[in-house]
């Protein structure tokens, strides 16, 4: 649940989602669910020469399992809080 909660705090932030097929989509995070499926608005494909078929798409739903990375704005992440939450989550499971 840690990463679900983490992504919920990032709703409204600009992110870049890199998929396992190397497609990178930049957009504003709209919502996320427990599978880390992601909804993005105002999307733009980073490499339009390689993936021109996405140019007319304005928003999308991304299945969580096809995500490789999500690049985040570092100003939006409280790393100390995140580390505390990680420690708490991983000791609560035992």
């Amino acid at each position, binding site marked *: 649940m840690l*990463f679900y909660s*983490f992504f919920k705090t990032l709703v409204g932030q600009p992110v870049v989602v890199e998929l396992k097929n190397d497609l990178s989509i930049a957009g504003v995070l709209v919502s996320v669910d427990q599978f880390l499926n992601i909804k993005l608005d105002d999307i733009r494909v980073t490499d339009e020469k390689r993936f021109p078929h996405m140019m007319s798409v304005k928003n999308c739903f991304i299945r*969580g399992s096809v995500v*490789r990375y999500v690049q*985040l704005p570092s100003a939006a*992440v409280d790393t100390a809080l995140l580390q505390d*939450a990680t420690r708490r989550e991983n000791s609560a499971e035992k």
Partner: protein
Amino acid sequence: MTDGAIAEPLDLVRLSLDERIYVKMRGDRELKGRLHAYDQHMNLVLSDVDETITVVDVNEETFEERIRTVKRSHEMMFVRGDGVILVSPPGRT
């Protein structure tokens, strides 16, 4: 359990929080970055990440293989756990 004890594999990862770790990924990718979060799936949040991608180019005529590395860096990123092969704590030097 005391904070310093390593009883199970994930404890090694917990002790690497806020340290620079090495992550080997599927698809000939390697990451080095500071660990801020992880879970049992090996989903990670890393900052100041240096990514190295190893690409093998095959010459179409001679079938010669040339190994090339592409480097990228990211300020802050989430890494999905299913692509992670191994996580290594910082060296003790």
